[in-house]
Protein backbone atom coordinates (compact mmCIF):
# COMPACT_ATOMS: atom_id res chain seq x y z
CA UNK A 1 0.00 0.00 0.00
CA UNK A 2 1.46 3.30 -1.04
CA UNK A 3 0.09 6.82 -1.31
CA UNK A 4 -1.32 9.41 1.06
CA UNK A 5 -3.93 8.36 3.62
CA UNK A 6 -6.13 10.86 5.46
CA UNK A 7 -6.09 10.72 9.27
CA UNK A 8 -9.84 10.03 9.20
CA UNK A 9 -9.16 6.62 7.71
CA UNK A 10 -6.60 5.80 10.40
CA UNK A 11 -9.06 6.87 13.09
CA UNK A 12 -11.77 4.65 11.59
CA UNK A 13 -9.40 1.70 11.49
CA UNK A 14 -8.45 2.08 15.16
CA UNK A 15 -12.03 2.72 16.34
CA UNK A 16 -13.50 -0.23 14.44
CA UNK A 17 -14.70 -3.04 16.70
CA UNK A 18 -13.59 -5.45 13.96
CA UNK A 19 -9.96 -4.65 14.75
CA UNK A 20 -8.83 -7.87 16.50
CA UNK A 21 -7.69 -6.49 19.85
CA UNK A 22 -10.03 -8.52 22.09
CA UNK A 23 -12.40 -5.57 22.53
CA UNK A 24 -15.28 -8.01 22.89
CA UNK A 25 -13.82 -9.17 26.23
CA UNK A 26 -14.30 -5.73 27.83
CA UNK A 27 -17.37 -4.12 29.41
CA UNK A 28 -15.72 -0.96 30.74
CA UNK A 29 -16.66 -1.99 34.26
CA UNK A 30 -20.34 -2.28 33.43
CA UNK A 31 -20.66 -5.98 34.29
CA UNK A 32 -19.70 -5.59 37.97
CA UNK A 33 -21.74 -2.37 38.09
CA UNK A 34 -24.83 -4.28 36.99
CA UNK A 35 -24.10 -7.00 39.53
CA UNK A 36 -24.08 -4.26 42.15
CA UNK A 37 -27.43 -2.88 41.05
CA UNK A 38 -27.08 -0.67 37.97
CA UNK A 39 -30.03 -0.97 35.62
CA UNK A 40 -30.65 0.01 31.99
CA UNK A 41 -31.70 3.50 33.04
CA UNK A 42 -28.30 4.08 34.67
CA UNK A 43 -26.09 3.30 31.69
CA UNK A 44 -26.03 6.80 30.11
CA UNK A 45 -25.02 8.35 33.44
CA UNK A 46 -22.39 5.65 33.94
CA UNK A 47 -20.90 6.45 30.52
CA UNK A 48 -20.87 10.14 31.39
CA UNK A 49 -19.16 9.59 34.74
CA UNK A 50 -16.45 7.52 33.07
CA UNK A 51 -15.81 10.26 30.51
CA UNK A 52 -15.23 12.71 33.36
CA UNK A 53 -13.03 10.37 35.44
CA UNK A 54 -11.18 7.20 34.42
CA UNK A 55 -11.62 7.69 30.68
CA UNK A 56 -10.41 11.29 30.85
CA UNK A 57 -7.25 10.05 32.55
CA UNK A 58 -6.78 7.36 29.93
CA UNK A 59 -7.36 9.78 27.07
CA UNK A 60 -4.98 12.38 28.49
CA UNK A 61 -2.31 9.72 28.99
CA UNK A 62 -2.74 8.51 25.41
CA UNK A 63 -2.54 12.08 24.07
CA UNK A 64 0.69 12.65 25.95
CA UNK A 65 2.10 9.30 24.77
CA UNK A 66 1.46 10.38 21.17
CA UNK A 67 3.24 13.64 21.88
CA UNK A 68 6.22 11.87 23.48
CA UNK A 69 6.56 9.73 20.37
CA UNK A 70 6.41 12.69 17.99
CA UNK A 71 9.01 14.62 19.98
CA UNK A 72 11.34 11.64 20.38
CA UNK A 73 11.21 11.86 24.16
CA UNK A 74 13.76 9.87 26.19
CA UNK A 75 12.95 6.70 28.16
CA UNK A 76 12.70 8.71 31.37
CA UNK A 77 9.74 10.65 29.97
CA UNK A 78 7.91 7.42 29.14
CA UNK A 79 8.58 6.10 32.64
CA UNK A 80 7.28 9.35 34.15
CA UNK A 81 4.14 9.07 32.05
CA UNK A 82 3.51 5.48 33.06
CA UNK A 83 4.05 6.25 36.74
CA UNK A 84 1.68 9.20 36.49
CA UNK A 85 -0.96 6.91 34.97
CA UNK A 86 -0.38 4.30 37.68
CA UNK A 87 -0.76 6.93 40.39
CA UNK A 88 -4.07 7.99 38.83
CA UNK A 89 -5.28 4.38 38.47
CA UNK A 90 -5.20 3.05 42.03
CA UNK A 91 -7.09 -0.19 41.34
CA UNK A 92 -4.66 -3.04 40.51
CA UNK A 93 -7.47 -4.78 38.60
CA UNK A 94 -7.95 -1.74 36.35
CA UNK A 95 -4.21 -1.49 35.76
CA UNK A 96 -4.05 -5.19 34.93
CA UNK A 97 -7.00 -4.93 32.53
CA UNK A 98 -5.38 -1.96 30.83
CA UNK A 99 -2.09 -3.81 30.41
CA UNK A 100 -3.78 -6.88 28.99
CA UNK A 101 -5.55 -4.66 26.47
CA UNK A 102 -2.20 -3.09 25.61
CA UNK A 103 -0.71 -6.52 24.96
CA UNK A 104 -3.62 -7.38 22.68
CA UNK A 105 -3.25 -4.11 20.79
CA UNK A 106 0.53 -4.36 20.47
CA UNK A 107 0.24 -7.94 19.23
CA UNK A 108 -1.59 -6.85 16.10
CA UNK A 109 0.13 -3.46 15.80
CA UNK A 110 3.65 -4.92 15.84
CA UNK A 111 2.62 -7.43 13.21
CA UNK A 112 0.99 -4.81 11.00
CA UNK A 113 3.68 -2.11 11.31
CA UNK A 114 6.86 -4.00 12.18
CA UNK A 115 9.89 -1.96 13.12
CA UNK A 116 7.91 1.19 14.01
CA UNK A 117 9.82 3.62 16.29
CA UNK A 118 6.82 3.43 18.64
CA UNK A 119 7.78 -0.10 19.68
CA UNK A 120 11.33 0.97 20.48
CA UNK A 121 9.99 3.84 22.59
CA UNK A 122 7.62 1.52 24.48
CA UNK A 123 10.52 -0.75 25.38
CA UNK A 124 11.16 1.72 28.19
CA UNK A 125 8.11 0.19 29.89
CA UNK A 126 7.98 -3.39 31.09
CA UNK A 127 4.18 -3.67 30.80
CA UNK A 128 2.80 -0.60 29.02
CA UNK A 129 -0.71 0.58 29.81
CA UNK A 130 -3.28 0.61 27.03
CA UNK A 131 -3.15 4.41 27.09
CA UNK A 132 0.61 4.43 26.43
CA UNK A 133 0.38 1.72 23.76
CA UNK A 134 -2.60 3.26 21.97
CA UNK A 135 -1.12 6.76 22.18
CA UNK A 136 2.18 5.53 20.77
CA UNK A 137 0.45 3.67 17.93
CA UNK A 138 -1.81 6.62 17.14
CA UNK A 139 1.20 8.92 17.22
CA UNK A 140 3.06 6.61 14.85
CA UNK A 141 0.12 6.69 12.47
CA UNK A 142 0.00 10.48 12.57
CA UNK A 143 -3.11 11.16 14.67
CA UNK A 144 -3.21 14.52 16.45
CA UNK A 145 -4.02 14.88 20.16
CA UNK A 146 -7.70 15.63 19.69
CA UNK A 147 -8.16 12.61 17.44
CA UNK A 148 -6.45 10.39 20.03
CA UNK A 149 -8.80 11.72 22.72
CA UNK A 150 -11.80 11.16 20.42
CA UNK A 151 -10.63 7.59 19.87
CA UNK A 152 -10.28 6.79 23.59
CA UNK A 153 -13.57 8.48 24.51
CA UNK A 154 -15.62 7.03 21.69
CA UNK A 155 -14.22 3.55 22.21
CA UNK A 156 -15.09 3.69 25.91
CA UNK A 157 -18.68 4.74 25.20
CA UNK A 158 -19.12 1.99 22.60
CA UNK A 159 -17.48 -0.61 24.85
CA UNK A 160 -19.90 0.08 27.70
CA UNK A 161 -22.94 0.35 25.43
CA UNK A 162 -22.13 -2.81 23.45
CA UNK A 163 -21.63 -4.71 26.72
CA UNK A 164 -24.96 -3.34 27.98
CA UNK A 165 -26.69 -5.03 25.04
CA UNK A 166 -25.35 -8.37 26.22
CA UNK A 167 -25.92 -7.86 29.94
CA UNK A 168 -29.34 -6.17 30.00
CA UNK A 169 -32.60 -6.55 28.11
CA UNK A 170 -32.29 -3.67 25.64
CA UNK A 171 -33.24 -2.55 22.16
CA UNK A 172 -30.06 -1.86 20.11
CA UNK A 173 -31.80 1.22 18.72
CA UNK A 174 -32.01 2.75 22.20
CA UNK A 175 -28.33 2.06 22.74
CA UNK A 176 -27.38 3.94 19.56
CA UNK A 177 -29.29 6.85 21.06
CA UNK A 178 -27.15 6.65 24.20
CA UNK A 179 -23.96 6.69 22.15
CA UNK A 180 -25.12 9.72 20.18
CA UNK A 181 -26.19 11.47 23.37
CA UNK A 182 -22.71 10.88 24.83
CA UNK A 183 -20.84 12.43 21.88
CA UNK A 184 -20.91 16.01 23.25
CA UNK A 185 -19.35 14.70 26.47
CA UNK A 186 -16.68 12.93 24.40
CA UNK A 187 -16.01 16.22 22.62
CA UNK A 188 -15.84 18.17 25.88
CA UNK A 189 -13.44 15.61 27.34
CA UNK A 190 -11.28 15.81 24.20
CA UNK A 191 -11.18 19.59 24.53
CA UNK A 192 -9.96 19.25 28.13
CA UNK A 193 -7.15 16.81 27.31
CA UNK A 194 -6.07 17.46 23.71
CA UNK A 195 -3.44 20.02 24.63
CA UNK A 196 -1.84 18.06 27.47
CA UNK A 197 1.88 18.70 27.07
CA UNK A 198 3.50 17.33 30.19
CA UNK A 199 2.85 14.91 33.02
CA UNK A 200 1.77 17.65 35.42
CA UNK A 201 -1.06 18.55 33.01
CA UNK A 202 -2.65 15.11 33.38
CA UNK A 203 -6.01 15.13 35.15
CA UNK A 204 -6.19 13.11 38.37
CA UNK A 205 -9.80 12.05 38.52
CA UNK A 206 -11.20 8.67 39.39
CA UNK A 207 -14.37 7.17 40.77
CA UNK A 208 -14.26 5.00 43.90
CA UNK A 209 -17.16 2.79 42.79
CA UNK A 210 -15.51 2.03 39.46
CA UNK A 211 -12.37 1.04 41.34
CA UNK A 212 -14.28 -1.08 43.88
CA UNK A 213 -16.31 -2.80 41.17
CA UNK A 214 -13.14 -3.58 39.21
CA UNK A 215 -11.56 -5.22 42.26
CA UNK A 216 -14.69 -7.29 42.98
CA UNK A 217 -14.97 -8.35 39.35
CA UNK A 218 -11.40 -9.62 39.20
CA UNK A 219 -12.16 -11.93 42.12
CA UNK A 220 -15.37 -13.49 40.82
CA UNK A 221 -15.58 -16.59 38.65
CA UNK A 222 -18.94 -15.59 37.15
CA UNK A 223 -17.67 -13.22 34.49
CA UNK A 224 -18.77 -12.80 30.89
CA UNK A 225 -16.26 -9.97 30.43
CA UNK A 226 -12.68 -9.72 31.56
CA UNK A 227 -13.23 -6.24 33.01
Amino acid at each position, binding site marked *: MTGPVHADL*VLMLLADARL*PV*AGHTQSGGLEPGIRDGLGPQDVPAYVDVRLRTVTEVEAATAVLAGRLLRTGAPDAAWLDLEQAWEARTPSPALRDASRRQAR*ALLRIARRTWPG*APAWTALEALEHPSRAAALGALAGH*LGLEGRAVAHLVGYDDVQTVCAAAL*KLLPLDPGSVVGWVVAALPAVEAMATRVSSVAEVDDLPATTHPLIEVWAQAHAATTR*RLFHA
Partner: protein
Amino acid sequence: MPEPSTTHGPTPSPTAPARALRLGVCGPVGTGKSSLIALLCRELSERLELGVVTNDIYTDEDARFLRSAGVLDADRIRAVETGACPHTAIRDDITANAMAIEELEEDYEHRLEMVLVESGGDNLTATFSSGLVDVQIFVIDVAGGDKVPRKGGPGVTFSDLLVINKTDLAPMVGADLDVMRRDAAAVRGDRPFVLISLTEDPAASAVLDWVRAQLQVAQDA
Protein backbone atom coordinates in the same frame (compact mmCIF):
# COMPACT_ATOMS: atom_id res chain seq x y z
CA MET B 1 0.56 6.64 6.97
CA PRO B 2 3.53 4.31 7.47
CA GLU B 3 3.79 1.19 5.37
CA PRO B 4 2.15 -1.86 6.88
CA SER B 5 3.77 -5.24 6.66
CA THR B 6 2.86 -7.22 3.56
CA THR B 7 3.54 -10.61 5.08
CA HIS B 8 0.58 -12.71 6.03
CA GLY B 9 1.78 -13.92 9.36
CA PRO B 10 4.68 -14.02 11.74
CA THR B 11 7.63 -15.66 10.02
CA PRO B 12 8.94 -18.47 12.21
CA SER B 13 12.62 -17.88 12.75
CA PRO B 14 14.99 -20.85 12.78
CA THR B 15 15.61 -20.17 16.47
CA ALA B 16 11.91 -19.85 17.36
CA PRO B 17 10.98 -21.99 20.36
CA ALA B 18 9.11 -25.21 19.67
CA ARG B 19 5.41 -24.65 19.28
CA ALA B 20 2.78 -26.98 20.66
CA LEU B 21 0.23 -28.55 18.35
CA ARG B 22 -2.95 -26.54 18.80
CA LEU B 23 -6.10 -28.63 18.69
CA GLY B 24 -9.49 -26.89 18.74
CA VAL B 25 -12.67 -28.55 19.95
CA CYS B 26 -15.98 -26.85 19.23
CA GLY B 27 -19.62 -27.74 18.75
CA PRO B 28 -23.06 -27.03 20.18
CA VAL B 29 -23.78 -26.84 23.91
CA GLY B 30 -23.96 -30.13 25.77
CA THR B 31 -22.56 -32.37 23.04
CA GLY B 32 -19.62 -33.52 25.15
CA LYS B 33 -16.72 -31.20 24.39
CA SER B 34 -15.52 -30.98 27.99
CA SER B 35 -15.84 -34.75 28.52
CA LEU B 36 -13.86 -35.37 25.36
CA ILE B 37 -11.13 -32.99 26.46
CA ALA B 38 -11.04 -34.57 29.92
CA LEU B 39 -10.68 -37.92 28.24
CA LEU B 40 -7.84 -36.73 26.00
CA CYS B 41 -6.05 -35.29 29.02
CA ARG B 42 -6.52 -38.51 30.99
CA GLU B 43 -5.27 -40.71 28.18
CA LEU B 44 -2.42 -38.51 26.94
CA SER B 45 -1.08 -36.51 29.88
CA GLU B 46 1.25 -39.24 31.10
CA ARG B 47 3.28 -39.18 27.92
CA LEU B 48 2.64 -35.68 26.63
CA GLU B 49 3.09 -32.14 27.95
CA LEU B 50 -0.45 -30.75 27.69
CA GLY B 51 -2.23 -27.46 28.25
CA VAL B 52 -5.91 -26.53 27.94
CA VAL B 53 -7.65 -23.22 27.24
CA THR B 54 -11.40 -23.06 27.87
CA ASN B 55 -14.02 -20.50 26.74
CA ASP B 56 -17.21 -21.12 28.67
CA ILE B 57 -20.11 -18.67 29.07
CA TYR B 58 -18.98 -17.70 32.53
CA THR B 59 -15.24 -17.54 32.86
CA ASP B 60 -14.23 -20.86 34.21
CA GLU B 61 -17.15 -23.27 34.31
CA ASP B 62 -15.39 -25.70 31.98
CA ALA B 63 -12.02 -25.01 33.51
CA ARG B 64 -13.41 -25.94 36.92
CA PHE B 65 -14.95 -29.11 35.48
CA LEU B 66 -11.58 -30.12 34.08
CA ARG B 67 -9.71 -29.19 37.24
CA SER B 68 -12.15 -31.15 39.37
CA ALA B 69 -11.83 -34.12 37.01
CA GLY B 70 -8.22 -34.19 38.20
CA VAL B 71 -6.88 -35.17 34.80
CA LEU B 72 -4.39 -32.32 34.53
CA ASP B 73 -2.64 -29.90 36.87
CA ALA B 74 -4.98 -26.98 37.57
CA ASP B 75 -2.35 -24.51 36.40
CA ARG B 76 -2.27 -26.08 32.95
CA ILE B 77 -5.94 -25.20 32.45
CA ARG B 78 -6.65 -21.55 31.63
CA ALA B 79 -10.01 -19.87 31.14
CA VAL B 80 -10.66 -17.00 28.74
CA GLU B 81 -13.55 -14.53 28.97
CA THR B 82 -15.35 -14.15 25.67
CA GLY B 83 -17.75 -11.31 26.54
CA ALA B 84 -20.70 -13.44 25.41
CA CYS B 85 -19.02 -13.84 22.02
CA PRO B 86 -17.73 -17.44 21.95
CA HIS B 87 -17.81 -17.42 18.18
CA THR B 88 -15.80 -14.19 17.89
CA ALA B 89 -13.20 -15.46 20.33
CA ILE B 90 -12.30 -18.48 18.17
CA ARG B 91 -12.66 -16.98 14.71
CA ASP B 92 -12.94 -13.21 14.15
CA ASP B 93 -10.85 -11.93 17.04
CA ILE B 94 -8.70 -14.72 18.41
CA THR B 95 -6.49 -12.38 20.44
CA ALA B 96 -7.60 -13.42 23.95
CA ASN B 97 -7.26 -17.13 23.16
CA ALA B 98 -3.97 -16.69 21.36
CA MET B 99 -2.59 -14.74 24.33
CA ALA B 100 -3.72 -17.47 26.73
CA ILE B 101 -1.97 -20.14 24.63
CA GLU B 102 1.20 -18.06 24.41
CA GLU B 103 1.19 -17.51 28.17
CA LEU B 104 0.82 -21.25 28.77
CA GLU B 105 3.69 -21.98 26.39
CA GLU B 106 5.88 -19.37 28.08
CA ASP B 107 4.96 -20.51 31.60
CA TYR B 108 5.97 -24.06 30.67
CA GLU B 109 9.12 -22.87 28.91
CA HIS B 110 7.95 -24.05 25.51
CA ARG B 111 7.87 -27.69 26.60
CA LEU B 112 4.16 -28.12 25.84
CA GLU B 113 3.52 -30.56 23.02
CA MET B 114 -0.21 -29.99 22.62
CA VAL B 115 -2.63 -27.25 23.67
CA LEU B 116 -6.33 -28.07 23.53
CA VAL B 117 -8.65 -25.11 22.98
CA GLU B 118 -12.27 -25.67 23.96
CA SER B 119 -14.76 -23.29 22.42
CA GLY B 120 -17.79 -22.17 24.34
CA GLY B 121 -20.85 -24.11 23.20
CA ASP B 122 -22.06 -22.46 20.04
CA ASN B 123 -24.19 -23.15 17.01
CA LEU B 124 -23.45 -25.08 13.83
CA THR B 125 -21.72 -22.12 12.20
CA ALA B 126 -18.91 -22.00 14.78
CA THR B 127 -15.46 -22.71 13.46
CA PHE B 128 -11.89 -22.01 14.56
CA SER B 129 -9.61 -19.58 12.77
CA SER B 130 -6.58 -21.26 11.25
CA GLY B 131 -4.61 -18.53 13.02
CA LEU B 132 -5.61 -20.04 16.37
CA VAL B 133 -5.52 -23.82 15.93
CA ASP B 134 -3.73 -26.23 13.63
CA VAL B 135 -6.46 -28.85 13.58
CA GLN B 136 -10.02 -28.88 14.86
CA ILE B 137 -12.62 -31.35 16.01
CA PHE B 138 -16.31 -30.55 15.74
CA VAL B 139 -18.53 -32.41 18.20
CA ILE B 140 -22.26 -33.03 17.72
CA ASP B 141 -24.42 -35.58 19.45
CA VAL B 142 -27.17 -37.99 18.62
CA ALA B 143 -29.53 -36.32 21.09
CA GLY B 144 -29.59 -33.18 18.96
CA GLY B 145 -31.40 -35.22 16.28
CA ASP B 146 -30.25 -37.27 13.31
CA LYS B 147 -30.83 -34.28 11.02
CA VAL B 148 -27.74 -32.41 12.27
CA PRO B 149 -25.17 -33.83 9.82
CA ARG B 150 -27.57 -33.05 6.96
CA LYS B 151 -27.85 -29.44 8.10
CA GLY B 152 -24.14 -29.04 7.54
CA GLY B 153 -22.33 -25.81 8.35
CA PRO B 154 -18.59 -25.24 8.41
CA GLY B 155 -17.92 -27.38 11.49
CA VAL B 156 -19.93 -30.39 10.35
CA THR B 157 -18.55 -30.09 6.83
CA PHE B 158 -14.98 -28.86 7.06
CA SER B 159 -13.63 -29.71 10.53
CA ASP B 160 -10.63 -32.02 10.46
CA LEU B 161 -12.60 -34.57 12.46
CA LEU B 162 -16.36 -34.73 13.05
CA VAL B 163 -17.34 -36.58 16.21
CA ILE B 164 -20.92 -37.80 16.50
CA ASN B 165 -21.20 -38.46 20.20
CA LYS B 166 -23.57 -40.38 22.50
CA THR B 167 -24.55 -43.10 20.01
CA ASP B 168 -25.91 -45.14 22.95
CA LEU B 169 -28.78 -42.65 23.18
CA ALA B 170 -29.96 -43.26 19.61
CA PRO B 171 -32.80 -45.70 20.46
CA MET B 172 -34.03 -43.39 23.23
CA VAL B 173 -34.24 -40.26 21.10
CA GLY B 174 -35.39 -41.95 17.92
CA ALA B 175 -32.22 -41.10 15.99
CA ASP B 176 -31.18 -43.24 13.06
CA LEU B 177 -27.39 -43.73 13.12
CA ASP B 178 -27.36 -44.94 9.52
CA VAL B 179 -28.92 -41.67 8.43
CA MET B 180 -26.28 -39.74 10.38
CA ARG B 181 -23.50 -41.83 8.84
CA ARG B 182 -24.87 -41.40 5.35
CA ASP B 183 -25.41 -37.64 5.65
CA ALA B 184 -22.03 -37.05 7.32
CA ALA B 185 -20.28 -38.97 4.54
CA ALA B 186 -22.21 -36.99 1.93
CA VAL B 187 -21.29 -33.54 3.29
CA ARG B 188 -17.71 -34.39 4.31
CA GLY B 189 -16.35 -36.20 1.28
CA ASP B 190 -12.94 -37.61 2.26
CA ARG B 191 -12.77 -35.85 5.63
CA PRO B 192 -13.04 -38.30 8.53
CA PHE B 193 -15.87 -38.67 11.04
CA VAL B 194 -16.41 -41.07 13.91
CA LEU B 195 -19.42 -42.20 15.92
CA ILE B 196 -18.66 -42.76 19.58
CA SER B 197 -20.27 -43.56 22.90
CA LEU B 198 -18.28 -42.77 25.99
CA THR B 199 -20.44 -45.12 28.03
CA GLU B 200 -19.57 -48.01 25.69
CA ASP B 201 -15.95 -46.98 25.01
CA PRO B 202 -14.76 -44.59 27.75
CA ALA B 203 -11.40 -44.22 26.00
CA ALA B 204 -13.00 -43.06 22.73
CA SER B 205 -10.37 -45.06 20.87
CA ALA B 206 -11.31 -43.71 17.46
CA VAL B 207 -10.78 -40.10 18.57
CA LEU B 208 -7.60 -40.93 20.43
CA ASP B 209 -6.14 -42.68 17.39
CA TRP B 210 -6.92 -39.66 15.26
CA VAL B 211 -5.34 -37.24 17.76
CA ARG B 212 -2.22 -39.43 18.00
CA ALA B 213 -1.97 -39.41 14.22
CA GLN B 214 -2.18 -35.59 14.20
CA LEU B 215 0.59 -35.41 16.78
CA GLN B 216 2.70 -37.70 14.62
CA VAL B 217 2.10 -35.55 11.55
CA ALA B 218 3.06 -32.40 13.51
CA GLN B 219 6.17 -34.10 14.87
CA ASP B 220 7.27 -35.27 11.42
CA ALA B 221 6.81 -31.76 10.07
